[in-house]
């Protein structure tokens, strides 16, 4: 979240789209109701289903799954053409005025630079024009035909009401109604918050859907203000923390990135990441990348990391692929290229798409290690559970270890919620039997490996033999020790520019401003620096007072970065430092420094006349309408159809097959052969979560099993009557990849849509239930889903695929 849960109460309009917080985040959703009751806010829901969030909404519009870019792109067009944008904000705080290279263009669904052979873009043309000093050229009147604003305007001019309605299947009057409600928040004293979750991420165009939402919020001037923002509700309790700590194939802690295999030189590696400002005087905070990096290497490799050996740069593994994501990994595993796999609190057999492929892949492993508090389907993928897991154990040669761990109630530590709060919790009881904390299991394995390498030698042992291990009990590093390490400490006295000591050797760091690139500081995650300073563990703080009445509760736990509760909050004030509106104020300039009800997300002494812009992590200091880099399929989001679409072509580009689906997506050949067509599987399906369950975990809880005991699917009334299905009938839902059986819930909540001249029915499939636990045994939902991901993140397209429904 750019903002936070309690801040939702400050919104005037809440757009829930790509998420269903009333059911998936029920307690957080109370702040939506609080906004409605206390702030006279209105709630708008745009969703394929009339959800429980929709049930309490002021307005609901149905939409075909996977068409959100069309809906939001049309909104951008509407806001610009009806002049409902926050002009001063757009001019001062976005890249709207920057001028793009002449070579850049977009034609028939493709941006310049596309190579159909490799499915990749050459992105040189996606850039600004620069002056002799290396700064982007600009036109502050926004009239230049190649300034970002005019290019964006032209790009979305195609997204008319008719086009949007034709793609999304949403009736025109409803689209207009939603757009008009959103347009009202262009006023500087009104904000809209956008709440989204996996309903946006789990599409082959997921990242660009979210970017479109961010563009809308920039046009309306809703970023950085109370009750504004683009808020990822996030699906798991510490998915935020694991992302922050970089537990993804290509990342290091704090969103730093591992080197690619062509980055052999340390200096170039840093220069590529330590980005200078592209607009004069901007902060461009990533310019300090080397401080974060060297401090991480000192935390990991201690005295072994020196300036002479480039801080152990050679020891970092280099990427030969953009990502080693899970789809990529299971493709390799399927071809026998992976021998061992660890699943720590993760149930891929149930959670990954195309279950048949997952089973076949796990069967090719030599060893599988499952570290979990519970029995999981993955750990028993080799076991025959009748029709629900029909395998022959004697033909599966994978050696499977199942290691019992503690659950949250049996350990100390922190998790990061979607408000970016690190909240410390305490163990209440010992774990069952011989179960151990993950830290002890990992340390046990690691120390054994170290011993084996010392005794036997082996491949490239230096990094693991030199890993800094300063823990009092080496077999079980304590949460407190690890938290102090990711906060970081000084190895030598650290001085500022005027040679004043800011932190002494051995002391904990107070913030990431104290980090140095000369090896004098160690820090495991620069973004978390400040959570455990010299004064103690701030993550345990329990002061829930709210002296400003803004809901920021700065004394409760600790939020990254630097205890800031609202990101980009400098944008809540005008360029001259006064708030856009008192009721939306977060920080302001008091004549000497930035003050307010939150920690300023800005250099506190940067006076307004210095003209530094609020988005301090960006090289332009601005919010980006134009994605010059980082997005593989283009600088502006464009609608492409899901890989399994219920219509014949992309209505925006009916004559260009290359622009039917995301042109930047990676599809493995065998997976492509497993895509179904709408002739055979005519209905659009989407998967989702229920209030009563959490994935496959709560299947093991009696209380949750009682409330939702058995697998069901939701079918609209008109389709049900067409197929002769009545409420309570058993049905089979099939995709190209397999089938599931379930009870039919016939409902008014899903309506047929008119899309591109045809009727499209959508089927709702909860992702819960498996073949273990207290609930009735069932097939896993991901038997059905396709193995293709978002072009940038490779997050699978769980939310849009094709099925057929048959009565059993």
């Amino acid at each position: 979240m750019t903002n936070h849960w309690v801040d939702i109460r400050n919104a005037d309009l809440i757009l829930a789209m790509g998420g269903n917080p009333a059911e998936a985040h029920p307690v957080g959703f109370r702040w939506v109701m609080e906004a409605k009751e206390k702030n006279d806010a209105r709630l708008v829901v745009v969703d394929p289903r009339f959800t429980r969030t929709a049930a309490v909404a002021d307005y609901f519009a149905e939409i075909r799954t996977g068409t959100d870019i069309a809906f939001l792109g049309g909104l951008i067009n509407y806001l610009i053409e009806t002049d409902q944008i926050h002009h001063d904000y757009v001019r001062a705080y976005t890249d709207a005025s920057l001028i793009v290279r002449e070579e850049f263009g977009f034609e028939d669904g493709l941006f310049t630079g596309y190579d159909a052979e490799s499915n990749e873009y050459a992105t040189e043309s996606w850039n600004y024009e620069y002056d002799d000093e290396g700064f982007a050229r600009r036109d502050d009147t926004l009239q230049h035909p190649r300034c970002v604003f005019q290019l964006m305007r032209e790009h979305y001019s195609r997204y008319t009401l008719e086009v949007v309605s034709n793609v999304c299947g949403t009736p025109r009057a409803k689209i207009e109604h939603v757009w008009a409600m959103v347009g009202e928040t262009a006023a500087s004293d009104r904000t809209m918050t956008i709440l989204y979750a996996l309903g946006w991420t789990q599409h082959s165009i997921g990242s660009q859907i979210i970017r479109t939402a961010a563009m809308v919020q920039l046009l309306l001037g809703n970023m950085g203000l109370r009750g504004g923002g683009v808020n990822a509700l996030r699906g798991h309790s510490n998915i935020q923390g694991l992302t922050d700590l970089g537990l993804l194939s290509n990342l290091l802690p704090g969103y730093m990135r591992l080197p690619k295999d062509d980055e052999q030189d340390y200096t170039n590696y840093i220069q590529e990441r330590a980005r200078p400002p592209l607009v004069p005087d901007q902060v461009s905070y990533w310019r300090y990348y080397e401080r974060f990096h060297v401090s991480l290497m000192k935390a990991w490799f201690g005295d072994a990391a020196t300036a002479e050996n480039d801080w152990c740069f050679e020891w970092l593994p280099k990427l030969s692929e953009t990502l080693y994501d899970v789809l990529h990994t299971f493709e390799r595993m399927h071809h026998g290229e992976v021998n061992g796999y660890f699943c720590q609190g993760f149930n891929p057999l149930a959670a990954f798409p195309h279950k048949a492929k997952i089973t076949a892949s796990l069967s090719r492993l030599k060893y599988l290690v499952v570290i979990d508090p519970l029995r999981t389907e993955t750990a028993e993928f080799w076991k025959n559970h009748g029709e629900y897991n029909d395998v022959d154990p004697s033909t599966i040669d994978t050696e499977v270890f199942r290691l019992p761990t503690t659950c949250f109630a049996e350990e100390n530590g922190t998790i990061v919620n979607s408000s970016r709060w690190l909240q410390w919790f305490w163990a209440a009881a010992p774990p069952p039997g011989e179960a151990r904390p993950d830290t002890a299991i990992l340390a046990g394995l690691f120390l054994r490996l170290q011993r084996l390498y010392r005794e036997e030698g082996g491949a490239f042992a230096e990094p693991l033999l030199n890993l800094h291990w300063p823990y009092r009990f080496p077999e079980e590093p304590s949460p407190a020790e690890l938290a102090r390490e990711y906060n970081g400490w000084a190895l030598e006295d650290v001085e500022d520019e005027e040679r004043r000591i800011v932190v002494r050797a051995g002391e904990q760091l107070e913030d990431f401003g104290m980090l140095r690139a000369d090896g004098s500081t160690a820090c495991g995650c620069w973004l978390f620096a400040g959570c455990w300073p010299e004064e103690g563990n701030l993550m345990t703080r329990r002061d829930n007072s709210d002296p400003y009445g803004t809901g920021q509760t700065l004394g409760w736990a600790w939020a990254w970065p630097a205890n800031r509760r609202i990101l980009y909050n400098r944008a809540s004030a005008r360029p001259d430092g006064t708030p856009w509106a008192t009721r939306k104020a977060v920080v302001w300039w008091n004549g000497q420094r930035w003050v307010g009800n939150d920690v300023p997300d800005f250099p506190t002494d940067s006076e307004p006349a210095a003209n530094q812009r609020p988005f301090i992590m960006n090289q332009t200091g601005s919010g980006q309408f134009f994605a010059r880099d980082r997005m593989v399929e283009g600088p502006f989001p464009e609608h492409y159809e899901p890989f399994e679409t219920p219509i014949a072509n992309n209505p925006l580009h009916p004559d260009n097959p290359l622009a039917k689906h995301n042109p930047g997506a990676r599809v493995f050949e065998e997976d492509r052969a497993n895509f179904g067509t709408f002739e055979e599987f005519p209905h659009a399906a989407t998967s989702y979560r229920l209030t009563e369950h959490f994935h496959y975990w709560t299947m093991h809880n009696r209380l949750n099993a009682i409330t939702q005991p058995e697998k069901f699917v939701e079918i609209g009334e008109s389709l049900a009557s067409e197929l002769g299905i009545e409420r309570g009938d058993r049905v089979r839902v099939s995709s190209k990849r397999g089938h599931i059986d379930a009870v039919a819930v016939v409902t008014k909540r899903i309506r047929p849509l008119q899309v591109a001249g045809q009727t499209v029915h959508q089927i709702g499939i909860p992702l819960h239930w498996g073949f273990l636990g207290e609930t009735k045994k069932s097939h896993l939902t991901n038997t059905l889903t396709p193995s293709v991901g978002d072009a940038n993140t490779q997050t699978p397209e769980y939310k849009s695929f094709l099925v057929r429904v048959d009565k059993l």
Partner: protein
Amino acid sequence: MTLKITRRQFFKLGAAGMATSSMAMMGFAPEPAVASIRHFKLSGAKITRSNCTYCSVGCGVLLYSRGDEAINTIDNIYHVEGDPDHPVSRGSLCPKGSGLLDYVNSDSRLSHPQVREPGTDEWKQISWDEALDRIARHMKDDRDANFVTQNDAGSTVNHWLTTGFLAASASTNETAYLTQKIVRSLGMLVFDNQARV
């Protein structure tokens, strides 16, 4: 951490105490044999602050357990409720959070290391030492056989791609940090968590 009594609880206890004592003054005291009133289920419990680990709202929960951590006593959690002081959840729990007790005490909790040998149809209980020794041996053999120092172009890559690791979105930052540190020191790149899906 032990919970200090809240203002609301203080008034409740005070009121209950007053009612009992005035009843006694008016001569309604029961016979000595049954004078011991039934205690509240939660009185005497140890209260521990925690957070729900399902979705990402991060609701505060209070875990009530028996036992004083002394030798020969077993602490078990027997009640879970929302933390009224928590600024987001203010004491509420959803149906998932309300079922946390059943998760902690589920019949599906694992209590001992086990192995399923290749081609067999059963779990076999083993000791921690055997489990960790065998896994470490697998890891080292695979790493030594498949570690790549240089790629075909002659560039140094120093990576190990034949063993992968999925990390847990419900684990703590401290576990996650240690996992990241170890995994990278081994040269692993096939590494993701639930954020990927």
